C-alpha cells in the first residue's frame, strides 16, 4: 500500500441554498474526525458555510444548473478547503469593510470578513470564482 500524499474529499452540489445543510454535515464530520477543538470546529465550519453560501447565491446566482465544487484536503495539522463556483467572479479587494462605521448596521456584507477572521489563510483566485482557505490545528499565532 503506497502512502497517500493527500487525503482529499470532494463534494459537488447544484446551486440550491438548502444544500448548505449537506455541506455543513460534511464539514462538521471532517472537522470532528480531525479532532479540531470545539471552537476551531465552529470557526472553520462557519467559514466554509459562508464560502459555500457565496458560491451558491452570488457566484452561481442560485442557478440550479450551475454547480459548486468543494475540495477538502485533510492534512496532519491542517484542513484546506477549496470552493469553486461557475459564476462571473468578482474582485474581493473591492468588498467594503463591514467594520467601517457606515457599514456596521448593514444587513449583509460580513461573509468574507468572517472567513478571513476565522481561517488562517484565505486566498481568492480565478477571478474570485475560487477561494482556498486553510485552518491549522495548533495555531500558536492566534
Amino acid at each position, binding site marked *: 500500500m503506497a502512502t497517500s500524499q493527500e487525503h482529499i474529499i470532494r463534494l459537488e452540489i447544484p446551486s440550491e*441554498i438548502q444544500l448548505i445543510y449537506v455541506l455543513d454535515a460534511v464539514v462538521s464530520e471532517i472537522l470532528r474526525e480531525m479532532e479540531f477543538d470545539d471552537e476551531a470546529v*465552529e470557526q472553520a465550519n462557519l467559514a466554509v458555510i459562508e464560502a459555500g453560501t457565496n458560491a451558491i447565491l452570488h457566484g452561481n446566482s442560485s442557478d440550479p444548473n450551475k454547480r459548486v465544487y468543494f475540495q477538502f484536503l485533510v492534512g496532519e495539522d491542517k484542513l484546506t478547503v477549496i470552493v469553486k463556483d461557475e459564476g462571473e467572479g468578482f474582485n474581493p479587494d473591492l468588498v467594503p469593510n463591514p467594520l467601517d462605521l457606515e457599514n*456596521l*448596521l448593514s*444587513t*449583509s456584507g460580513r461573509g468574507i470578513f*468572517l472567513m478571513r*477572521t476565522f481561517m488562517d489563510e484565505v486566498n481568492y483566485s480565478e477571478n474570485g470564482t475560487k477561494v482556498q482557505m486553510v485552518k491549522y490545528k495548533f495555531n500558536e499565532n492566534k
Partner: protein
Amino acid sequence: MDVSIRERDGVTIFDIQGRIIGSDSLELKSVIDDHIASKAEGEVKILLNLARVPMMDSSGLGVVVAAYTSVQRKKGRIALLNLGRSTRQLIVMAKLMTIFETYDNEDEAVASFQ
C-alpha cells in the same frame, strides 16, 4: 432551526433552537418581520433567546441587525438573551456588542422592559 414565540409581561420572547445557517435566516426574518408588523408604534418589545443556537452565520446575524433596525424605526426595543460562545464571538467580531443589548438572565431581561 425552529422558532417558537411566547409572551411574558408584555415582552415577546422568540425561543430559537438550532443552527441558523443557509435558508434558516429567511424563515427567521419572516417570523420576526410578521411580529413587528403586527404591533403599533412604541409597542414592540422583543427578546431573542439564543440559548439553544449553537451557531449562526452572517445571514443569521444580518437578520438580527435587520430586526434591530426595524424595531428602532418603530420606537420599540429589542434585546438578545443567552448568547453562547459562538454567537457571542460572532457579534463581538462584527463590532455589534455595544449596539445590541444583551442579557444572560431571562427574568432580568424581561424586567428591563417594564
